[in-house]
Structures are given as structure tokens and as C-alpha cells.
């Protein structure tokens, strides 16, 4: 028997704000979280632009042993998950006595690996790296830390799928619950913000060079876009079976009704319209809805010339030109491993506030973006159902569809 899958908690820690309230206000105001980071310039980056959120001090919340194994991905994920658990009404006592899982998206731990290796080289003694490094350095750092801190007893693994990691993590949690294997899964995505994590990406020449105007630099779908801007933080989405949510009186924020996915099987970094269309169509088929039922599309569009054009064509091919579309990356930059989860949180905040956040900096369309309905100013609109796309290197595509209950 298939189970309905609902969302009972969300949490966010991003360059748009350190909690849901702050982020909702930023989304409505169309506020950019992009800055110029001198550290990157000094490091040798082509582009020093990045989304930025401060690293919190967890001393007041966690013991020394709990903190030792955490670097940015786990730290950010802890902040987002704390908030999501609170929204969901889940406390440590309940988690310890029930079976709650965690499937979190993450695809790098570059800074902590670099720091550990530098230390070993300097000291010529691996013991002097310290005991926390191994738990910071493994890609599964988020789920190993959070499952320990929050006493989780269910499924427990990290999902790595480049810039679709966060979206697939929600998709995997959805399948676990739908099939009756889990009642509740903490999903999400984390993305470290530092030079080590992004140096090799910057080297590809894919980042925007509009350094004189940081808040104008991320401009998905705009004719004059010149590249993406990296960003980060973490977003958590708690999924639960409808029955389990009702049984414990949890707030039901929305229902996840469709998960589509595909692999391009082609170029390692170039997008594929055909692959994107397959992901979109699979999600729609699974959700058993038609294209006219979708009130809003949160696009993957990262502000690269090639990527945005192909997504605009895929959306037009499947939906035509009427459905409202915006890319919140125009404000956040590209939150990479976290993006698929954060964009679900952003879209849910829009659903709760009955507005569509703007695709800021969309000033002039190009041939592809002119064919779809891009929302460039905040629009008051009731959203019953939305769709979110995530596409990653290696040609991994993910689409999620969410509606009100």
C-alpha cells in the first residue's frame, strides 16, 4: 500500500536569512544575499562573488564532543534542522523513542580536508590532526553528526548528486515513506561556503565577473547574464507519512505528490533539454496532475548562458508559456548541494505567504526566456501547487511537485 507523504517541518540557514521569518521577508522584498569576498580575490579566484552567511557558534547548544566533528556543512545543517524540528514539534525524547531517518544532501567537505592535510604536512604526524577531522572530512558528515546529536534511529545516509543532491534527498525520503519503510525522514541539503570548496569550480570560468555590482550579478534568464555565483548554507525538510503526522498532531505544511528524475547520459557539465523534459514528465505523471494544475515553477536556472536557455526551452516544451516561473538563485546565488532543498523551503514560504518571489535582475529576455512567463517583481498569488527543478553535473536531474493539503 502506498502512503501519502507530507511535509511537517522546514528550516533554513542561508544568505537570505538565518531562519524562516528572515528568509520569508527577504524573498518578498527581492533582496540579494550576494557579496564581494576579498578572501577569494587574494586566493586567486577569477570571481570573488559569493552568497554569504555567518558561521554560528554552537557552544551554547552542543557539547565539545558533538562540535568537534562538525565543519561548515554539518554546522549549517544543524541550524536548519533545529528549526525544522521545532516547526514540526519533534523533540529529542520523541526522536529517541521513535524511528526517524535522515537522508541529507551533501557533495563536498573541501575546507576541512584541506585543513587536516595541511596540519599533517606541517607536523609530519597524523595524530596531530586531532580526533574531529575524520568526522568533518567524510562526505557523510551531515548525517553522521545529526543522527548522533538528534538520536535518530531510522534510515541514515548522505546523498551526493552534485547540484541536485538536496532535491534527490527529498525524493529518496519520499520513496521510503511512500513504500511504508519509514514513517518520518529528515531530508535536506548542505553547502559549505569557502574558497577551498569553490576554487576548482571558479577555474572553469563559469562564475559571473560582474564584481562591481554583486547584487546585480546573479541574473537568471536575463539576456546579459554572464555566469553563476556560488553560495551556501543549509535547508531541512521533514517528511512524514500522512498517518504518522495526523497521529502525533503535527502541522501539515503541504504534500509531496511527485518526484521525477533522469540522467542525461551525455556531457559531464552541459545540460540536456531532453533529459530535463524526461524528469519533468515523470514527476507530472507520478503526481497524476496536468500541467495546468501547476501554479508556479521554481526554476533551477543558475544564471549561466547555456543552462538557463535549455531550462527555458524544456519548460516551454512541457508547460507552454503561461505558468509563472522564477529562479530564487537570482537572490541567493547557486546554493549547489543545498539548492534542491532550499528551493523547496523558499517555495513553501511563498505558498504560505501567497506570493511569488521575484526573479530579480531579469531586465531583458533572450530568445528562450521570452517564451516563458518569468516573474521579475514580487507577485501576490495563491499557490496551490508548485514544481521545483534541480539539475547537476554528470547530467543528474530531479523534479519535485508539492501541493497544499
Amino acid at each position, binding site marked *: 500500500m502506498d502512503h501519502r507523504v507530507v511535509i511537517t517541518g522546514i528550516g533554513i540557514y542561508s544568505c537570505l536569512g538565518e531562519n524562516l521569518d528572515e528568509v520569508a521577508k527577504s524573498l518578498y522584498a527581492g533582496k540579494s544575499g550576494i557579496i564581494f569576498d576579498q578572501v577569494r580575490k587574494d586566493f586567486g579566484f577569477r570571481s570573488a562573488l559569493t552568497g554569504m552567511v555567518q558561521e554560528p557558534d554552537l557552544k551554547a547548544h552542543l*557539547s565539545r564532543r558533538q562540535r568537534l566533528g562538525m565543519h561548515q556543512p554539518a554546522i549549517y545543517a544543524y541550524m536548519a534542522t533545529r528549526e525544522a524540528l521545532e516547526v514540526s514539534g519533534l523533540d529529542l525524547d520523541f526522536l529517541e523513542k521513535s524511528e526517524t531517518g535522515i537522508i541529507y544532501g551533501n557533495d563536498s567537505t573541501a575546507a576541512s580536508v584541506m585543513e587536516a592535510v595541511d596540519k599533517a604536512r606541517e607536523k609530519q604526524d597524523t*595524530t596531530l590532526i586531532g580526533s574531529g577531522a575524520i568526522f568533518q572530512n567524510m562526505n557523510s558528515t551531515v548525517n553522521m553528526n545529526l543522527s548522533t546529536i538528534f538520536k535518530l534511529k531510522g534510515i541514515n545516509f548522505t546523498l551526493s548528486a552534485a547540484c541536485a543532491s538536496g532535491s534527490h534527498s527529498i525524493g529518496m525520503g519520499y520513496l521510503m515513506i511512500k513504500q511504508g519503510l519509514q514513517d518520518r525522514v529528515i531530508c535536506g541539503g548542505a553547502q559549505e561556503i569557502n574558497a577551498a570548496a569553490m576554487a576548482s569550480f571558479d577555474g572553469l570560468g563559469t562564475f559571473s565577473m560582474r564584481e562591481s555590482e554583486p547584487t546585480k550579478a546573479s541574473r537568471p534568464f536575463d539576456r546579459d547574464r554572464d555566469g553563476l555565483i556560488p553560495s551556501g548554507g543549509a535547508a531541512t525538510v521533514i517528511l512524514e507519512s500522512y498517518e504518522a503526522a495526523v497521529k502525533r498532531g503535527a502541522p501539515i505544511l503541504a504534500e509531496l505528490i511527485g518526484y521525477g528524475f533522469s540522467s542525461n547520459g551525455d556531457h559531464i557539465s552541459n545540460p540536456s533539454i531532453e533529459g530535463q523534459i524526461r524528469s519533468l514528465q515523470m514527476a507530472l505523471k507520478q503526481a497524476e496532475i496536468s500541467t495546468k494544475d501547476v501554479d508556479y515553477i521554481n526554476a533551477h536556472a543558475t544564471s549561466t548562458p547555456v543552462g538557463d536557455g535549455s531550462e527555458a526551452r524544456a519548460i516551454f516544451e512541457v508547460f507552454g508559456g503561461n505558468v509563472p516561473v522564477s529562479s530564487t538563485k537570482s537572490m541567493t546565488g547557486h546554493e549547489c548541494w543545498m539548492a534542491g532543498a532550499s528551493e523547496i523551503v523558499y517555495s513553501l514560504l511563498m505558498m504560505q505567504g501567497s506570493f511569488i518571489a521575484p526573479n530579480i535582475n531579469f531586465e531583458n529576455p533572450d530568445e528562450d526566456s521570452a517564451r516563458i512567463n518569468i516573474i521579475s517583481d514580487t507577485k501576490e498569488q495563491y499557490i496551490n501547487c508548485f514544481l521545483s527543478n534541480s539539475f547537476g553535473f554528470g547530467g543528474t536531474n530531479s523534479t519535485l511537485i508539492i501541493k497544499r493539503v
Partner: protein
Amino acid sequence: MHANDVKMNLEEVIEDTRDFLSEEFEVDRDLILPENNLKDTLDLDSLDYVDLVVLIEENLNIKLTGEDFKEIQTFGDFYQLVRKKLSL
């Protein structure tokens, strides 16, 4: 400042040690007394011994191994080992 950079006496090493151990392991400095048990006072598990080695290297410039800790029960035992290693 490392103990070897400028020669410290044992009293200075002890006070320095109480500072860095209480800060790192988040325990009351007043509990770090020669007669108290090191493992119990600092609430050390197997992973913590690795960090203890790191701290001692960073603060006292002495490289200890797991073998060294086999002989240590109290902070007093530890100070004696430090005294020997630093020839104080």
C-alpha cells in the same frame, strides 16, 4: 608560548596546563588538581586522548603517545611525566 621556547618551571607548566585543559574540555579549572583522576575529571573517551596529545604538543611542545598515558592516573602523574620530558 611553548614550554621549550622559554624555559618554564614546573609551577608555570602546571598552571598553563590547567588553563588549556579546562578550556578545551570545558571543565572547572578548580577540579584540575594533582590528586584528581585525569580521565574521570576531563571525562575522556578514546577519541579524546587523541585531542589530549594534540593539546600537549601545541601547548607544551611534547609529543606523547598512547603508551605514555598507560602510566598516568592522576594529574600529579601527568605533571611528573612532563617534568621528566622537559627535564625540569
